[in-house]
């Protein structure tokens, strides 16, 4: 019986290392996404994933598609710079696939939507039209629980 080769342990070690390398490469092949970008280190498929989120807000141009008249009138109004959806809510809550599903929500039974912007706060810029709560109370004393909308048009709230 001949002695085992003095280099047998090295061969075994090399075999084990090659085996580990092969397993590593197989696992790497399996877990690295196909569209992996090695330069910037991200999965390119994630861009499409992010872009596929549904839209809720359409912008004024979407509103004008049906409400062209109102949109044209607005050009002259005080609140012309405002987005329709600031007060009327998101397009997706009103229209789905071009079909009206629900009335555009606007809170016309309380004053919060007016006061949310126009109630006086020290943090608001000086030039912004804002009214102190006490002044508003005195101003609306005529009737209990009087709404701003009773006198002011929301699209063109000139005094």
């Amino acid at each position, binding site marked *: 019986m001949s002695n085992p080769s003095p280099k047998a342990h090295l061969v075994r070690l090399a075999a084990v290392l090659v085996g580990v390398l092969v397993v590593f490469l197989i696992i790497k092949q399996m877990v690295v996404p196909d569209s992996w970008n*090695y330069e910037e280190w*991200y999965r390119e498929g*994630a861009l499409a994933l992010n872009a596929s989120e549904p*839209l*809720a807000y359409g912008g004024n141009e979407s509103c004008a598609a049906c409400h062209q008249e109102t949109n044209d009138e607005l050009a002259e109004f005080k609140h012309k710079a405002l*987005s329709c959806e600031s007060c009327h809510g998101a397009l997706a809550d009103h229209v789905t696939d071009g079909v009206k599903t629900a009335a555009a929500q606007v809170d016309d039974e309380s004053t919060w939507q007016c006061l949310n912007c126009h109630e006086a706060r*020290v*943090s*608001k*810029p000086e030039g912004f039209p804002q009214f102190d709560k006490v002044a508003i109370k005195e101003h609306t004393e005529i009737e209990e629980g009087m709404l701003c909308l009773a006198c002011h048009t929301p699209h063109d709230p000139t005094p």
Partner: protein
Amino acid sequence: MKNMKKIVEMEMPSIPDSRREFLIRLLEGTATATVLMVFGPGASAHGPETGISGSLEPAKHNYAYIIDINKCIGCGNCVRACKRENSVPADYFRTWVERYVVRADGVYVDSPNGALEGFEKLNKKFRDNIQLSRTVPKMCNHCHNPPCVQVCPVGATFKSPEGFVLVDHDYCLGCAYCVQACPYAARFINPVKHKSDKCTWCYHRVKKGKLPACVTVCPQKARLFGDLNDVESEVSKIFEKDHWMVLKPEMHTDPTCFYIGLPREVV
């Protein structure tokens, strides 16, 4: 004196040699490390610093977001729109508004429910002696050099070719390293998806030619979004003439979210 010099020379003959050796080795080590850093496997993984843009087409757009503090009224329209547009769960915010109150006795900051319903009036006692008060919208700064991208162990957060810092929801583990890394506290773990979540500058909207939801609804045009490569765009014009600032410049994150009229008390 003459003797002493002789002794020194005699006793330490090897010092110049070993120093030379040491310096040569040090040089070799430094050179190797530099070569590895510049050309090594992980070199281009994380950053614009290397100047390697890779196989991507050169950026056509240079998007910027501008927030004008002197126009913001703290109405919270942006916060509500962001919540609706991106289905952000209750008590979590991709954008929020902070109210800074500067008084002689200190700086006070509040953001009740992220300013989802605006701000309550400050009480009379507190309102006196205010030196300055401003509402400051906050969000992801979409940094050129984002710390959140550097720390992600699986490459699930990244800077898109257009400059948006985005999250790959399919590969995010929810380990929250990025949440800790963000100096602007813009990230959170979405309690529904259990994934990292943040402002995307409404990537899905911008891709379809719309503005981000917060920009769309802002009644004061305090929030603007546009392309700095387009010299005719509103942001370019403002960017040129105004004294803009960024949040936490000392962090060297190089944000693309610029503030106008930012009081120095704001952090």
